């Protein structure tokens, strides 16, 4: 339905462009490897209930006898703890997989919502122009002049703890980036002939904006969204580490690290170490993919 309204030639050109971009993306082995890592971690997170050795939130499965065991040790029932256990005898590997699940979910939901919101605002600004554009973009400027961590901290301090509050904070932090990016590319597209043609057909404004302007102004947002997912993961982890993010009952990676902080000084390093490695790997892999994408999608650098 959505595609049917866009002229066939446009769809084909878009497909060809996407195909070329993908081939170019695949030229970098590092980027392909990073993409594979992201896919693998996403699959692990999605399938957590089936792949994790135990359910870390089910207290009946934990045995307190097994607390703070180092990596590769066996518990009282003979099960292997690949990455050790925490202070409650929870298998760290399982806790990390479930924590990753929560971290990724929060980041993806927040990014997707912020993308829709920001893209709407940016398109409106570019399409309407004039005073509406000036006001919206001033708002974006002001928001972007404050660091994300500060805005998120303030919001969480006012709203309180909880997964939903963290998502709201992340959305509020992110929308401005999308608004600014899509406005830039939409301003260029707006002067193209196909928009003029659509206008002369007297199509409704919303239809020109979303069916014609949006698909063509969209590609730069892919890079921003990729980088922002990584930022969102890091920000959520930071808030949770500070004890202002997700509740203690379902720890994300940041909270696992905060929990391990207390035991680190007494030598149980693995409780804080491995969740951090998981965070580092997922954020670095997403950033590597984003880095390559921006090279591929930015024609200025193709030389």
């Amino acid at each position, binding site marked *: 339905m959505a595609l049917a309204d866009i002229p066939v030639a446009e769809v084909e050109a878009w497909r060809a462009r996407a195909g070329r971009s993908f081939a170019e993306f695949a030229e970098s082995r590092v980027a392909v490897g990073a993409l594979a890592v992201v896919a693998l971690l996403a699959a692990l997170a999605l399938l957590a209930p089936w792949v994790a050795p135990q359910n870390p939130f089910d207290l009946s499965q934990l045995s307190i006898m097994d607390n703070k065991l180092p990596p590769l040790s066996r518990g009282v029932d003979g099960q292997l703890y690949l990455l050790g256990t925490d202070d409650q005898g929870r298998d760290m590997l399982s806790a990390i997989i479930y924590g990753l699940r929560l971290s990724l979910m929060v980041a993806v939901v927040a990014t997707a919502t912020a993308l829709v919101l920001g893209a709407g605002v940016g398109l409106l600004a570019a399409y309407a122009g004039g005073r509406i554009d000036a006001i919206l973009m001033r708002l974006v400027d002001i928001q972007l002049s404050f660091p994300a961590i500060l805005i998120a901290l303030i919001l969480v*301090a006012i709203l309180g703890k909880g997964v939903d509050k963290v998502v709201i904070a992340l959305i509020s932090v992110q929308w401005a980036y999308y608004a600014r990016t899509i406005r830039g590319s939409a301003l260029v597209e707006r002067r193209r002939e196909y928009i003029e043609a659509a206008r002369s057909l007297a199509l409704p404004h919303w239809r020109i904006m979303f069916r014609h302007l949006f698909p063509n102004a969209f590609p730069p947002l892919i890079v921003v969204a990729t980088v922002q997912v990584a930022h969102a993961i890091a920000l959520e982890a930071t808030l949770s580490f500070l004890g202002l993010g997700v509740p203690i009952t379902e720890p994300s990676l940041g909270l696992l690290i905060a929990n391990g902080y207390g035991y*680190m000084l007494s030598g149980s390093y693995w409780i804080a170490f491995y969740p951090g490695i998981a965070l580092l790997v997922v954020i*670095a892999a997403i*950033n590597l993919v984003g880095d390559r994408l921006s090279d591929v999608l930015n024609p200025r650098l193709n030389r």
Partner: protein
Amino acid sequence: MLAFLFRRLGQGLLVVAVMATLVFVGVYALGNAIDILISPEADQLEREQAIERLGLDRPLWVQFAIFVKSALTGNLGISFVHGEPALDLILSRMPATLELAFVALVIAVGVGIPAGLLAGVAPRSLLGRGIMTGSILGFSVPNFWLGLMLILVFAVQLKVLPAGGRGETVDVLGIPLSLFTLDGLRHLILPALTLGIYKASLITRLAYAGTRDALLQDFVRFARAKGLPERRVIGVHVLKAILIPVVTVIGLELGSMIAFAVVTETVFAWPGMGKLLIESIYRLDRPVIVAYLIVIVLMFVVINFIVDVIYTLLDPRVRLSGQEV
């Protein structure tokens, strides 16, 4: 140019006004202002006195006027926990944060610019690719976790550096600083490194892109054609070209460092205003939270304004198109 700066100043004041209003709405309009502004331990008499003093029994717009008036006179309430004026508390913690952010910035620039230049000159070499991959790792590593790992290695395992605190300080012009004592320096190095590494990666990438861009420009070709040694072409001509974007970014990054210090200070028990904020959030010490927000917004507006001035001085294009910006 003057018109441009005045417009920016006006904008800055507008931001302060908007933020103050938001803080007011957050504290007074949402939730019960009495619970927020009066300590839960106050007895009935104290409560009534405070309600009258803060005007909480008056209409909302009168309350807003009182809030603005007391904020303008620097009276941002008294901390529930410390029993001191919130503003004094924030200001007394500010030097520690500024010192940390400043040293971190020096590390970021000192590492970032040379690394970016090296990588930009030889992007395909092992060193160049290593630096760029390293920079991606550098801004991917969660800041607080990096701090923990530094503590683990240097404080727990090697036992060469302290795990937290500020160490011995010396008063310079009445401001206590750690920078000038050996003990203070030993306490400063890990938090500053933690805070600086993320920004070092960003500056590396910025310098890298700038160098690659500059190397294709005519002035570099001309300098080479003149027969200047490569050292001078890179060290003087290219460096000058990449400094403009870097200098303007540094101002903004200083602000962002001060905000990010919240995390680093918590990890290293560094007694700055960021740690104070987190403690105040835990203990619901709301006057301090409000005071922190207002101080930090003011600081940001001032920093952004200074950056704008520097930018105007450095880049003639902004100066000339001042009318349109």
